[in-house]
């Protein structure tokens, strides 16, 4: 009887230590998984920047490219324009053309118009969006009216140009083979103190 209990006791102890080790390993793996899931976010972002997936900017293109690039005349792309205003801003904002046909590698000009119908000056600031997202990495704006505050005096109306081009490499990308329409959307917000906009370089994470 005693021998049996001694054996069972040592067996119990063995099981206990083994259980403890297993539990420790499981706990370590659990902590490791949680850590990995947090690390995945910046790692994924780095990966996207390196490979250009998901519409993120692929390392800055140099401005010499504009001078050197050759238009891909066979690939005509329709660029459609969209204009939005946030509910809080009372501007009338619209594109002056619904669409324009461009080819990659050729600079293009397009216009929006904004009017302040109220009796007080309003300062607006805009951001933009390109659909399809993946095409966004090829859509390069040389100059536009976005991301900086624009002030319109009462009853003032102005033309707002966008000067852009589509990267000629767009034509080489197999993922873009079926893309023949790109939509550019601008949205104007009223510039207020402490307002956060999804502006580039503006960390809001």
């Amino acid at each position, binding site marked *: 009887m005693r021998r049996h209990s001694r054996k069972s006791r040592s067996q119990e102890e063995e099981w206990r230590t083994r259980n403890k080790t297993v539990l420790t390993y499981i706990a370590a793996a659990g902590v490791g998984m949680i850590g990995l899931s947090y690390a995945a976010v910046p790692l994924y972002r780095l990966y996207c920047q390196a490979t250009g997936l998901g519409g993120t900017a692929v390392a800055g293109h140099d401005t010499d490219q504009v001078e050197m690039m050759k238009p891909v005349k066979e690939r005509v792309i329709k660029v459609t324009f969209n204009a939005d205003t946030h509910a809080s801003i009372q501007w009338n904002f619209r594109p002056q053309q619904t669409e324009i046909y461009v080819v990659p590698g*050729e600079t293009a000009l397009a216009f929006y118009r904004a009017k302040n119908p109220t009796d007080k000056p309003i300062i607006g600031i805009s951001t933009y969006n390109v659909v399809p997202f993946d095409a966004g990495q090829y859509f390069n704006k040389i*100059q536009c009216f976005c991301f900086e505050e624009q002030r319109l005096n009462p009853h003032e109306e102005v*033309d707002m140009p966008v000067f852009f081009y589509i990267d000629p490499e767009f034509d080489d990308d197999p993922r873009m083979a079926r893309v023949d329409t790109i939509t550019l959307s601008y949205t104007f917000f009223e510039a207020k103190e402490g307002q956060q906009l999804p502006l580039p370089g503006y960390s809001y994470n």
Partner: protein
Amino acid sequence: MNFGSKSFKPRPPDKGSFPLDHFGECKTFKETFMRCLRENSFDNSKCRLQSKDYLECRMDHQLMAREPLQKLGFKDLMDPPPSQEESTP
């Protein structure tokens, strides 16, 4: 903030923002450009001369930093032989 969902990341323009043309100094050039677009079914390639004129107007009125036109992609419009025409797409 969404993990892993594809979202668009806006990029700032290469040369920054156009100052607003509060006095409409280049409005006529813009009108010429828009008329050209309407006449050519909004084909940008056919109206590049007008867009070049508009940008030159901006540069003349300090509404845009002056730059050589080649850097704005207008190299083909500045080639010396006057008989050279832009090929239609």
